[in-house]
């Protein structure tokens, strides 16, 4: 039964808490946070650009596994980065709480009494006047303006040889500095809480919708979808939209030729009531970059666009086995795009096509593959390699619509052994080896829409806006104590003034001079 270890543990905890909440630790953690954020800007992040991460892995096969172990591809969700900001958060709260208590006491406190010797303070001055002690104290009170002021009425104190009259003014100003300081730090906690709530309850997904097609807000309609841990898919607001037109315009001439000028997706949308009642009347939308569509708490953004060639495939038996617009994903600024066409129902064998789409095809030479010269569809061209066999779409395993599963496919080749490639401009039909035809019926555009919601985003935004106001207060207000002591000496009053800044600044003497000027103008006229 020895209580000592228990006490030690408590002391240890106390010591750890003190260390963690000290300014020095907060400063250290801040700088650590800055350093820890650096690698995420130099190594691609899977949460930001997953494709760049894949490319990085291929380029650095030796280094990538090590970076993986360190969490360098997802720095901002890694344990070590989280550890730093959580410690910082604890340190922050451990700083806010005691300071708020101290502040609450200081708010009610009266200004402290004047020190005995004004000469020891950083700035002080003495002058004489004929005004009475009462007048001096009243003038001082007026000159102090909006500071918190206590006037200690003149009393008779023992002086050299006889009793003299003496009084003092105690003033304290700049409480708002600490108010602002606390507001700012509390607002940072509110921002982090708000961001966390938004991440937990929010979601974000994207879908490619070709002109003429529709989208309804259900999980199955998304190409990709991510949500927070507390998000419930039943909470997806029910709405549907029909994309009628995708408008992409580019600079036609000059040094910026090919630069994007306008992206817009237009059509109609309708919201469906939660109770399953009839839909509202359709309303038009015109979504542009910087101008998302708001549907309830959800925003629909236009985050990309590209081309969907309309392909028609007739099989060897003369039946139309496929006719649809197929999105091809752009891979560069001139919209060189890649995609696949899957025709599992072609007879006698399934057909698959993989290739590219060029909005403005230019041939570079006799045997060279054409390239895209401009992002708008001025001279569209589809180039496709042909595959035959089982596409594997019916075996139940989910497949990407942008990748051909070639396990059970054979590439069709020419007599000389080179892969067969069909090139089509709009309206062109090509015969397929072994019977059947493929036609490029036309070219449509698609919009890549992002549908997302970050609930309670107002909390961090309002919090940080309030925080900045607090910050301005805490950086600009001077917490200052001023004392005036007036002592009657015969027919004259000796006035002593001293000021003390609780945050030392270099401009104190100048401020004291300015105050003295104000003070003396408040004094009654000198009488002879």
């Amino acid at each position, binding site marked *: 039964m020895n209580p000592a270890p228990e006490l030690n543990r408590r002391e240890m905890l106390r010591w750890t808490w003190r260390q963690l909440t000290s300014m020095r630790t907060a*400063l250290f953690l801040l700088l650590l946070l800055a350093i820890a*954020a650096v690698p*995420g800007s*130099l190594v691609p992040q899977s949460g*930001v650009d997953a494709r760049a991460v894949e490319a990085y892995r291929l380029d650095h096969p030796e280094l990538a596994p090590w970076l993986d172990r360190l969490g360098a591809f997802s720095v901002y969700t890694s344990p070590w980065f989280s550890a730093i900001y959580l410690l910082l958060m604890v340190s922050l709260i451990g700083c806010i709480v005691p300071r708020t208590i101290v502040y609450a006491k200081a708010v009610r406190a009266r200004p402290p009494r004047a020190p005995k010797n004004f000469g020891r303070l950083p700035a002080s001055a003495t002058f004489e006047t004929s005004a009475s002690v009462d007048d001096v104290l009243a003038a001082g009170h007026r000159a102090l303006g909006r500071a918190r002021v206590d006037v200690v009425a003149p009393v008779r104190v023992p002086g050299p040889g006889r009793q003299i009259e003496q009084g003092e003014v105690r003033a304290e100003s700049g409480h708002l500095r600490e108010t602002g300081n606390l507001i700012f730090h509390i607002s940072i906690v509110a921002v982090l809480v708000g961001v966390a709530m938004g991440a937990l309850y929010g979601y*974000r997904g994207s879908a490619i919708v070709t002109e003429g097609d529709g989208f309804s807000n259900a999980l199955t309609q998304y190409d990709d979808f991510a949500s927070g841990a507390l998000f419930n898919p039943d909470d997806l607001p029910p709405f549907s939209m029909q994309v009628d037109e995708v408008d992409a315009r580019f600079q036609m001439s000059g040094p910026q030729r090919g630069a994007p000028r306008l992206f817009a997706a237009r059509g109609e949308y309708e919201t469906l009531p939660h109770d399953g009642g009839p839909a509202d009347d359709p309303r038009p939308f015109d979504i542009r970059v910087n101008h998302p569509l708001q549907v309830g708490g959800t925003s629909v953004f236009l985050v990309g666009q590209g081309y969907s060639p309309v392909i028609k495939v007739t099989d060897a038996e003369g039946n139309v086995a496929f006719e649809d617009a197929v999105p091809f994903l752009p891979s560069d600024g001139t919209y060189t795009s890649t995609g696949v066409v899957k025709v599992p129902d072609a007879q006698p064998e399934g057909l698959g096509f993989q290739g590219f789409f060029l909005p403005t095809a230019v041939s570079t030479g006799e045997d060279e593959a054409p390239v895209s010269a401009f992002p708008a569809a001025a001279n569209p061209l589809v180039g496709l390699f042909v595959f035959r066999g089982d596409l594997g779409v019916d075996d139940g395993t989910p497949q990407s619509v942008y990748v051909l599963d070639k396990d059970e496919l054979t590439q069709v080749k020419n007599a000389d052994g080179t892969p067969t490639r069909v090139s089509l401009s709009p309206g062109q039909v090509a015969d397929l080896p072994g019977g059947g035809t493929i036609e490029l019926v036309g070219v449509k555009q698609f919009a890549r829409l992002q549908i997302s919601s970050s609930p309670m985003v107002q909390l961090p*935004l309002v919090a940080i806006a309030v925080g900045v106001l607090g910050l301005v207060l805490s950086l600009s207000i001077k917490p200052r104590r001023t004392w005036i002591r007036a002592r009657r000496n015969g027919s004259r009053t000796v006035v002593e003034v001293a000021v003390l800044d609780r945050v030392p600044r270099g401009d104190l003497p100048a401020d004291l001079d300015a105050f003295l000027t104000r003070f003396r103008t408040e004094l009654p006229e000198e009488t002879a």
Partner: protein
Amino acid sequence: MTLEESAKALIVAANCVLALAFVAYVAQWGFARNVVPDRELVGAGAPASSPEEVAEERSDVAGGIGFSLTVLATLVLLAGVVARALAAERVPWGNMYEFGSVAILVALTAYVVLVRIWSIDWVGPIITGFGTMVLGASMLVYVPAGPLVPALDSYWLVIHVLGAIISGSAFLVGAAASALFLVKARAEANTAEADRAGFLWRIPSSAAIDQVAYRVHAFAFPIWTFAALIAGPIWAHYAWGRYWGWDPKEVWAFITWVVYAGYLHARATAGWKGKAASILALVGFATFVFNFVGVNLFVGGLHSYAK
């Protein structure tokens, strides 16, 4: 000469004038290298005769020329930036070249104003030298005036980027003061009273310089908070569909914010006041410059059209 060519020529001309201002400021320091301060010579008002008086007068004249040339450079640069805005038919900060020239215009204006109210002409060599460098280097990323890509076409461009320009310019003035604080504080600690000669002893004490540095940073930090952490995320939401996405530009804006927050805390922490705090201010400015140059040119990301 088209409007765009006039803009380019004016900005180049402003850079030449600014380079001359820099030379004059360097001469101001150079002439005074042997001058002992605060030693009032007997018979003041008499024609300058001693070598020391001649040096002092030359230094003053060079400083006056430096300031006048800086004012001239600022006005010419203003004309260039206005011409650029008219040529592009929009606010003149849509790419790296324009950002650089407007940021230097704002920094020079701030300097000229602060010389008037706080007499900070002693940061002249650093401001004019750095400005010359930025304006010169921005010619390397020159792009003809033109319209903006859709993502930039928003009124947030005015708010967000202007906030970044104003705070960045103030960070430059703050960094210049912090650098001089370090030099002066070191000299004050290591130089015997008798050896105190040169322009360094004609500028305010390290404590007064620190005060200027603090005031400028206290002005810049809330604006940076607004530009990077309020206006930026709001615009990012509209343009890219998310408030914060750890894009390299966002990461470095955050790093800059954290380092300057560190500076403000360091000023109130025993053992960090003075030297360490001032070094943090310089590190903060370095992260800002890296965000402007390094991230734009070498890292990429969504903000890469800033080139």
